[in-house]
Protein backbone atom coordinates (compact mmCIF):
# COMPACT_ATOMS: atom_id res chain seq x y z
CA UNK A 1 0.00 0.00 0.00
CA UNK A 2 1.39 3.39 -0.96
CA UNK A 3 1.88 6.23 1.46
CA UNK A 4 -0.79 8.47 -0.06
CA UNK A 5 -3.49 5.80 0.07
CA UNK A 6 -2.82 5.56 3.80
CA UNK A 7 -2.49 9.30 4.24
CA UNK A 8 -5.86 10.33 2.74
CA UNK A 9 -8.21 8.16 4.84
CA UNK A 10 -6.19 8.72 8.02
CA UNK A 11 -6.22 12.51 7.51
CA UNK A 12 -9.89 12.66 6.52
CA UNK A 13 -10.67 10.54 9.59
CA UNK A 14 -8.56 12.73 11.86
CA UNK A 15 -10.45 15.84 10.75
CA UNK A 16 -13.76 13.93 11.08
CA UNK A 17 -12.92 12.98 14.69
CA UNK A 18 -11.83 16.52 15.56
CA UNK A 19 -15.06 18.01 14.11
CA UNK A 20 -17.29 15.57 16.02
CA UNK A 21 -15.43 16.09 19.31
CA UNK A 22 -15.37 19.90 19.00
CA UNK A 23 -19.13 19.87 18.43
CA UNK A 24 -19.62 17.87 21.64
CA UNK A 25 -20.92 14.83 19.80
CA UNK A 26 -18.64 12.48 21.72
CA UNK A 27 -21.04 12.92 24.64
CA UNK A 28 -24.10 10.66 24.92
CA UNK A 29 -25.82 13.17 27.19
CA UNK A 30 -25.52 15.82 24.49
CA UNK A 31 -26.84 13.51 21.77
CA UNK A 32 -29.77 12.42 23.94
CA UNK A 33 -30.78 16.10 24.26
CA UNK A 34 -31.93 15.88 20.64
CA UNK A 35 -34.51 13.25 21.58
CA UNK A 36 -35.62 14.80 24.88
CA UNK A 37 -35.95 18.15 23.03
CA UNK A 38 -33.52 19.94 25.35
CA UNK A 39 -30.35 20.28 23.23
CA UNK A 40 -30.53 20.34 19.43
CA UNK A 41 -26.78 20.17 18.77
CA UNK A 42 -27.22 16.95 16.73
CA UNK A 43 -29.68 18.59 14.33
CA UNK A 44 -27.68 21.82 14.06
CA UNK A 45 -24.37 20.05 13.37
CA UNK A 46 -25.85 17.47 11.00
CA UNK A 47 -27.79 19.93 8.90
CA UNK A 48 -25.03 22.58 8.79
CA UNK A 49 -22.72 19.80 7.59
CA UNK A 50 -25.18 18.47 5.01
CA UNK A 51 -25.93 21.97 3.68
CA UNK A 52 -22.20 22.83 3.51
CA UNK A 53 -21.19 19.64 1.69
CA UNK A 54 -24.28 19.79 -0.54
CA UNK A 55 -23.72 23.41 -1.59
CA UNK A 56 -19.97 22.81 -1.94
CA UNK A 57 -20.32 19.77 -4.16
CA UNK A 58 -23.12 21.42 -6.18
CA UNK A 59 -21.14 24.60 -6.89
CA UNK A 60 -17.80 22.85 -7.46
CA UNK A 61 -19.59 20.64 -9.98
CA UNK A 62 -21.45 23.54 -11.57
CA UNK A 63 -18.21 25.51 -11.97
CA UNK A 64 -16.53 22.46 -13.49
CA UNK A 65 -13.96 22.16 -10.68
CA UNK A 66 -14.96 18.60 -9.77
CA UNK A 67 -16.71 15.81 -11.63
CA UNK A 68 -19.67 15.08 -9.38
CA UNK A 69 -20.40 11.86 -11.29
CA UNK A 70 -17.05 10.51 -10.04
CA UNK A 71 -18.27 10.71 -6.41
CA UNK A 72 -19.88 7.53 -5.15
CA UNK A 73 -23.57 8.07 -4.30
CA UNK A 74 -25.09 5.42 -1.98
CA UNK A 75 -27.67 3.34 -3.87
CA UNK A 76 -31.27 3.15 -2.70
CA UNK A 77 -33.00 0.02 -1.38
CA UNK A 78 -36.30 1.44 -0.12
CA UNK A 79 -37.56 -1.14 2.40
CA UNK A 80 -34.24 -2.35 3.87
CA UNK A 81 -33.19 1.27 4.40
CA UNK A 82 -36.55 2.24 5.94
CA UNK A 83 -36.56 -0.73 8.34
CA UNK A 84 -32.80 -0.46 8.92
CA UNK A 85 -33.24 3.21 9.77
CA UNK A 86 -36.01 2.44 12.25
CA UNK A 87 -33.94 -0.24 14.03
CA UNK A 88 -30.90 2.04 13.93
CA UNK A 89 -32.84 4.94 15.45
CA UNK A 90 -34.08 2.74 18.31
CA UNK A 91 -30.49 1.64 18.96
CA UNK A 92 -29.31 5.26 18.76
CA UNK A 93 -31.67 6.44 21.49
CA UNK A 94 -31.06 3.36 23.70
CA UNK A 95 -27.26 3.67 23.48
CA UNK A 96 -27.08 7.47 23.29
CA UNK A 97 -24.41 7.38 20.58
CA UNK A 98 -24.05 6.41 16.91
CA UNK A 99 -21.16 4.49 15.29
CA UNK A 100 -18.92 7.49 14.50
CA UNK A 101 -19.63 9.33 17.75
CA UNK A 102 -19.17 6.15 19.84
CA UNK A 103 -15.58 5.96 18.54
CA UNK A 104 -14.96 9.57 19.55
CA UNK A 105 -16.60 8.98 22.96
CA UNK A 106 -14.41 5.90 23.53
CA UNK A 107 -11.28 7.77 22.40
CA UNK A 108 -11.94 10.52 24.94
CA UNK A 109 -12.12 8.02 27.80
CA UNK A 110 -15.84 7.26 28.02
CA UNK A 111 -16.35 3.59 28.72
CA UNK A 112 -20.02 3.82 27.70
CA UNK A 113 -18.68 4.78 24.26
CA UNK A 114 -16.46 1.70 24.27
CA UNK A 115 -19.47 -0.46 25.18
CA UNK A 116 -21.42 1.00 22.24
CA UNK A 117 -18.44 0.21 19.96
CA UNK A 118 -18.55 -3.39 21.21
CA UNK A 119 -22.31 -3.60 20.74
CA UNK A 120 -22.13 -2.35 17.13
CA UNK A 121 -19.43 -4.92 16.36
CA UNK A 122 -21.55 -7.74 17.81
CA UNK A 123 -24.66 -6.51 15.99
CA UNK A 124 -22.91 -6.37 12.62
CA UNK A 125 -21.13 -9.70 13.18
CA UNK A 126 -24.39 -11.41 14.16
CA UNK A 127 -26.35 -9.92 11.25
CA UNK A 128 -23.56 -10.93 8.89
CA UNK A 129 -23.65 -14.51 10.20
CA UNK A 130 -27.44 -14.55 9.72
CA UNK A 131 -27.11 -12.96 6.29
CA UNK A 132 -28.22 -15.98 4.20
CA UNK A 133 -31.65 -15.83 5.85
CA UNK A 134 -32.11 -12.08 5.33
CA UNK A 135 -30.43 -11.65 1.95
CA UNK A 136 -33.65 -11.62 -0.09
CA UNK A 137 -34.97 -8.75 2.06
CA UNK A 138 -31.55 -7.02 1.96
CA UNK A 139 -31.62 -7.02 -1.85
CA UNK A 140 -35.32 -6.09 -2.18
CA UNK A 141 -36.83 -2.83 -3.53
CA UNK A 142 -33.59 -1.85 -5.26
CA UNK A 143 -33.78 1.50 -7.07
CA UNK A 144 -30.11 1.96 -7.96
CA UNK A 145 -28.74 5.51 -7.77
CA UNK A 146 -31.92 7.45 -7.08
CA UNK A 147 -31.89 11.14 -6.26
CA UNK A 148 -34.40 13.48 -4.60
CA UNK A 149 -34.65 15.68 -7.75
CA UNK A 150 -35.93 12.58 -9.65
CA UNK A 151 -38.64 11.93 -7.05
CA UNK A 152 -39.94 15.49 -6.88
CA UNK A 153 -39.40 16.33 -10.57
CA UNK A 154 -37.09 19.20 -9.73
CA UNK A 155 -33.75 20.25 -11.16
CA UNK A 156 -30.74 19.38 -8.99
CA UNK A 157 -30.26 23.06 -8.13
CA UNK A 158 -33.90 23.50 -7.11
CA UNK A 159 -33.70 20.45 -4.82
CA UNK A 160 -30.55 21.93 -3.23
CA UNK A 161 -32.40 25.20 -2.65
CA UNK A 162 -35.40 23.44 -1.06
CA UNK A 163 -33.13 21.55 1.36
CA UNK A 164 -31.31 24.78 2.29
CA UNK A 165 -34.67 26.45 3.03
CA UNK A 166 -35.87 23.45 5.08
CA UNK A 167 -32.61 23.50 7.06
CA UNK A 168 -32.87 27.25 7.72
CA UNK A 169 -36.49 26.79 8.86
CA UNK A 170 -35.37 23.89 11.07
CA UNK A 171 -32.63 26.01 12.66
CA UNK A 172 -35.17 28.73 13.50
CA UNK A 173 -37.54 26.15 14.96
CA UNK A 174 -34.93 24.48 17.22
CA UNK A 175 -33.60 27.86 18.40
CA UNK A 176 -37.17 28.72 19.38
CA UNK A 177 -37.63 25.36 21.16
CA UNK A 178 -34.35 25.78 23.07
CA UNK A 179 -35.35 29.26 24.25
CA UNK A 180 -38.70 28.14 25.60
CA UNK A 181 -38.95 28.54 29.38
Amino acid sequence: MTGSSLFVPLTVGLAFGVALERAGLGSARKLIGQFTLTDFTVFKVMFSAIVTAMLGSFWLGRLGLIDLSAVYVPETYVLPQAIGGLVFGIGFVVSGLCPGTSCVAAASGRIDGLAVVGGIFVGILGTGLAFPSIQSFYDSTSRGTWLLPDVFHLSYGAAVLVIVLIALGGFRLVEYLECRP
Partner: protein
Amino acid sequence: MTAGSEPARYADPYLAGVGLGLVLLASYVVAGRGLGASGAFASAAGGLVQAVSPAYAAANGYFSRYVGPGVSVWQDWLVLEIIGACFGGWLSARLAGRVRWEAERGADVTIPARLMFAVLGGAAMGIGAVLARGCTSGQALTGGALLSVGSWIFMLTAFAGAYALSPLIRGAWR
Protein backbone atom coordinates in the same frame (compact mmCIF):
# COMPACT_ATOMS: atom_id res chain seq x y z
CA MET B 1 -5.52 18.47 32.01
CA THR B 2 -4.26 20.05 35.18
CA ALA B 3 -6.15 19.33 38.34
CA GLY B 4 -9.00 21.71 38.98
CA SER B 5 -9.04 23.32 35.55
CA GLU B 6 -12.37 23.41 33.77
CA PRO B 7 -12.71 21.66 30.40
CA ALA B 8 -13.12 24.04 27.48
CA ARG B 9 -16.61 24.73 26.15
CA TYR B 10 -17.76 22.94 23.02
CA ALA B 11 -17.66 24.81 19.72
CA ASP B 12 -20.67 26.61 18.30
CA PRO B 13 -22.75 23.82 16.70
CA TYR B 14 -23.27 25.67 13.41
CA LEU B 15 -19.55 26.41 13.10
CA ALA B 16 -18.66 22.81 13.97
CA GLY B 17 -21.26 21.65 11.44
CA VAL B 18 -19.75 23.78 8.68
CA GLY B 19 -16.33 22.35 9.62
CA LEU B 20 -17.72 18.81 9.44
CA GLY B 21 -19.32 19.64 6.08
CA LEU B 22 -15.97 20.88 4.73
CA VAL B 23 -14.33 17.61 5.84
CA LEU B 24 -17.07 15.71 4.01
CA LEU B 25 -16.65 17.90 0.92
CA ALA B 26 -12.87 17.40 0.98
CA SER B 27 -13.44 13.65 1.15
CA TYR B 28 -15.71 13.77 -1.94
CA VAL B 29 -13.06 15.77 -3.83
CA VAL B 30 -9.90 13.94 -2.74
CA ALA B 31 -11.19 10.38 -2.33
CA GLY B 32 -14.34 10.33 -4.49
CA ARG B 33 -16.37 9.11 -1.52
CA GLY B 34 -17.78 10.50 1.69
CA LEU B 35 -17.40 9.62 5.36
CA GLY B 36 -18.41 6.40 7.08
CA ALA B 37 -18.28 4.54 10.37
CA SER B 38 -20.36 1.35 10.43
CA GLY B 39 -18.55 0.10 7.30
CA ALA B 40 -15.32 -0.02 9.31
CA PHE B 41 -17.06 -2.29 11.85
CA ALA B 42 -18.28 -4.48 8.97
CA SER B 43 -14.72 -4.80 7.65
CA ALA B 44 -13.43 -5.63 11.11
CA ALA B 45 -16.16 -8.25 11.62
CA GLY B 46 -15.36 -9.66 8.18
CA GLY B 47 -11.68 -9.76 9.12
CA LEU B 48 -12.48 -11.78 12.25
CA VAL B 49 -14.66 -14.24 10.32
CA GLN B 50 -11.95 -14.50 7.64
CA ALA B 51 -9.32 -15.27 10.29
CA VAL B 52 -11.48 -18.04 11.78
CA SER B 53 -12.60 -19.55 8.48
CA PRO B 54 -11.55 -18.11 5.11
CA ALA B 55 -13.84 -20.55 3.29
CA TYR B 56 -16.90 -19.48 5.32
CA ALA B 57 -16.09 -15.77 4.83
CA ALA B 58 -15.82 -16.26 1.07
CA ALA B 59 -19.15 -18.12 0.96
CA ASN B 60 -21.02 -15.60 3.13
CA GLY B 61 -22.88 -13.08 0.97
CA TYR B 62 -22.23 -10.23 3.41
CA PHE B 63 -18.65 -10.72 4.61
CA SER B 64 -17.41 -11.58 1.11
CA ARG B 65 -18.13 -7.94 0.21
CA TYR B 66 -15.55 -6.81 2.73
CA VAL B 67 -12.82 -9.47 2.80
CA GLY B 68 -11.22 -11.83 0.37
CA PRO B 69 -7.90 -13.29 -0.71
CA GLY B 70 -5.18 -10.63 -0.62
CA VAL B 71 -7.45 -8.05 1.00
CA SER B 72 -6.26 -6.82 4.36
CA VAL B 73 -8.67 -5.23 6.82
CA TRP B 74 -5.85 -2.82 7.67
CA GLN B 75 -5.89 -1.49 4.10
CA ASP B 76 -9.62 -0.82 4.12
CA TRP B 77 -10.42 2.86 3.52
CA LEU B 78 -13.07 3.11 6.25
CA VAL B 79 -11.00 1.19 8.81
CA LEU B 80 -8.14 3.66 8.28
CA GLU B 81 -10.56 6.58 8.38
CA ILE B 82 -12.05 5.41 11.69
CA ILE B 83 -8.57 4.90 13.18
CA GLY B 84 -7.91 8.50 12.16
CA ALA B 85 -11.23 9.59 13.70
CA CYS B 86 -10.38 7.93 17.03
CA PHE B 87 -7.03 9.71 17.07
CA GLY B 88 -8.62 13.01 16.06
CA GLY B 89 -11.31 12.65 18.72
CA TRP B 90 -8.71 11.89 21.38
CA LEU B 91 -6.43 14.73 20.28
CA SER B 92 -9.26 17.27 20.23
CA ALA B 93 -10.53 16.16 23.65
CA ARG B 94 -6.99 16.18 25.05
CA LEU B 95 -6.32 19.73 23.83
CA ALA B 96 -9.62 20.89 25.35
CA GLY B 97 -9.00 19.12 28.67
CA ARG B 98 -11.94 16.79 28.12
CA VAL B 99 -10.28 13.34 28.27
CA ARG B 100 -11.77 11.65 31.30
CA TRP B 101 -12.42 8.06 32.36
CA GLU B 102 -16.11 7.88 33.04
CA ALA B 103 -19.35 6.17 32.10
CA GLU B 104 -21.61 9.00 31.07
CA ARG B 105 -25.09 8.34 32.48
CA GLY B 106 -28.06 9.77 34.33
CA ALA B 107 -27.85 10.37 38.07
CA ASP B 108 -30.01 7.36 39.00
CA VAL B 109 -28.41 4.91 36.55
CA THR B 110 -25.76 2.42 37.69
CA ILE B 111 -22.64 1.85 35.60
CA PRO B 112 -23.54 -1.79 34.75
CA ALA B 113 -27.03 -0.68 33.63
CA ARG B 114 -25.58 2.09 31.48
CA LEU B 115 -23.10 -0.31 29.87
CA MET B 116 -25.83 -2.88 29.23
CA PHE B 117 -27.99 -0.33 27.40
CA ALA B 118 -24.90 0.85 25.50
CA VAL B 119 -24.19 -2.69 24.26
CA LEU B 120 -27.86 -3.43 23.44
CA GLY B 121 -28.35 -0.13 21.64
CA GLY B 122 -25.07 -0.61 19.81
CA ALA B 123 -26.14 -4.09 18.66
CA ALA B 124 -29.46 -2.71 17.37
CA MET B 125 -27.55 -0.03 15.44
CA GLY B 126 -25.33 -2.76 14.01
CA ILE B 127 -28.38 -4.65 12.70
CA GLY B 128 -29.90 -1.44 11.32
CA ALA B 129 -26.65 -0.33 9.68
CA VAL B 130 -26.28 -3.66 7.85
CA LEU B 131 -29.82 -3.42 6.43
CA ALA B 132 -29.48 0.29 5.60
CA ARG B 133 -25.95 -0.11 4.17
CA GLY B 134 -24.57 2.59 6.42
CA CYS B 135 -25.18 4.79 9.42
CA THR B 136 -25.41 8.44 10.38
CA SER B 137 -22.07 9.03 8.61
CA GLY B 138 -22.29 6.90 5.48
CA GLN B 139 -25.99 7.43 4.81
CA ALA B 140 -27.33 10.54 6.58
CA LEU B 141 -24.31 12.82 6.03
CA THR B 142 -22.62 11.39 2.94
CA GLY B 143 -25.67 10.28 0.96
CA GLY B 144 -27.85 13.06 2.38
CA ALA B 145 -25.62 15.81 0.97
CA LEU B 146 -25.55 13.99 -2.40
CA LEU B 147 -29.39 13.88 -2.38
CA SER B 148 -29.67 10.07 -2.35
CA VAL B 149 -33.29 9.07 -1.75
CA GLY B 150 -32.33 6.01 0.32
CA SER B 151 -30.13 8.13 2.57
CA TRP B 152 -33.02 10.53 3.28
CA ILE B 153 -35.37 7.58 3.91
CA PHE B 154 -32.79 6.25 6.41
CA MET B 155 -32.45 9.65 8.08
CA LEU B 156 -36.22 10.12 8.46
CA THR B 157 -36.93 6.61 9.77
CA ALA B 158 -33.91 6.72 12.13
CA PHE B 159 -35.18 9.93 13.73
CA ALA B 160 -38.72 8.48 13.78
CA GLY B 161 -37.50 5.33 15.59
CA ALA B 162 -35.49 7.37 18.06
CA TYR B 163 -38.33 9.79 18.84
CA ALA B 164 -40.84 6.94 19.15
CA LEU B 165 -38.76 5.38 21.93
CA SER B 166 -37.49 8.60 23.54
CA PRO B 167 -40.28 8.92 26.19
CA LEU B 168 -39.06 5.64 27.70
CA ILE B 169 -35.45 6.78 28.11
CA ARG B 170 -36.10 10.38 29.13
CA GLY B 171 -36.06 9.57 32.85
CA ALA B 172 -32.77 7.67 32.66
CA TRP B 173 -30.83 10.81 31.69
CA ARG B 174 -31.96 13.10 34.47
